[in-house]
């Protein structure tokens, strides 16, 4: 990142190649909209480029720092959108599969069911699950991104998983 802060575009390209897919998946799980997730990814990378000199490797890992930027952007969008229209109405997280048509159909059904279940969770529950379960970040990093204690994170995770289980059982 020191090279990036000095304007090294090649170094930045290497950073984006490693981290961009994870950031996009994270934004997609929070926002449930591909277009919005792509916007968040673009803005996250732009900010990382502009503010690279501010990154302190002693305070956070690079992936944590990038997730934190993306998280803040997602929160802004969710707050803004909740006043306009709910994102869940046009949830779009799917992408083409290379499996057989039957398997693809089954996967798509399960995928839609889960997208619906996730959209029913609160934003904080969804964020906690996305960071620890799907992004596989250590609990310390996830708590840092959300600005809460590890204890509070665990409490959110327990409630999120219980709620999700209930929703999935009811819809089955």
């Amino acid at each position, binding site marked *: 990142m020191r090279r990036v802060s000095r*304007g090294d575009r090649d170094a930045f390209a290497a950073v984006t190649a490693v981290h961009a897919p994870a950031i*996009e998946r994270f934004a*997609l799980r929070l926002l449930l909209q591909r277009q919005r997730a792509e916007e968040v990814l673009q803005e996250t990378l732009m900010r990382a480029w502009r503010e*690279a*000199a501010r990154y302190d490797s002693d305070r956070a890992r690079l992936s944590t720092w990038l997730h934190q930027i993306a998280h803040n952007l997602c929160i802004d969008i969710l707050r803004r959108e909740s006043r306009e229209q709910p994102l869940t109405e046009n949830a779009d*997280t799917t992408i083409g599969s290379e499996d057989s048509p039957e398997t693809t159909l089954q*996967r798509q059904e399960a995928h839609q069911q889960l997208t619906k279940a996730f959209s029913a969770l609160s934003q904080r529950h969804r964020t906690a*699950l996305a960071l620890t379960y*799907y992004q596989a970040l250590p609990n310390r990093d996830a708590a840092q991104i959300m600005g809460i204690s590890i204890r509070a994170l665990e409490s959110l995770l327990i409630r999120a*998983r219980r709620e999700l289980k209930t929703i999935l059982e009811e819809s089955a």
Partner: protein
Amino acid sequence: MKTSDSQSALSLERGVAILDAYGASPARWPEAQREAMLALLMRSSELRAHRDAAANLDSSLDLWDVQAKAHPFLLPESLPTQHAREQQRRDSLIDDLLSPLVGWQRLAFAAAPMMIGFFWGLQGTNAVEDWSTTEFSLLNPIPEVTSNE
């Protein structure tokens, strides 16, 4: 020895909380408690049943396969880093100061402080050649004459 201490310190209640929060995969458990958790699982059938239930939910969660699109991020050529922006700001400040001036005027502007110093030096007090007289006059000022009418 530290490991065995932490293993014995992990209660069943804490084990259940870890499974409820992080799921069944040890990779997601808090690193500091992973070994103790595995040891506790070996001992407790109740915890193993709990782990199976957590694994069930995990397998459902794993179906939510969200993929990122493979699109390269193109950084706009015109977008500078913060470091470059600060440099630009300094450059533009100097440009703003010098912008009304052209060619030879800028040179004169830059050389002005040096010329002022040079002429100031030339017009300074004359050098004292005989220090003994100067010192004597400084140390022994002529007394003021007062009339006592």
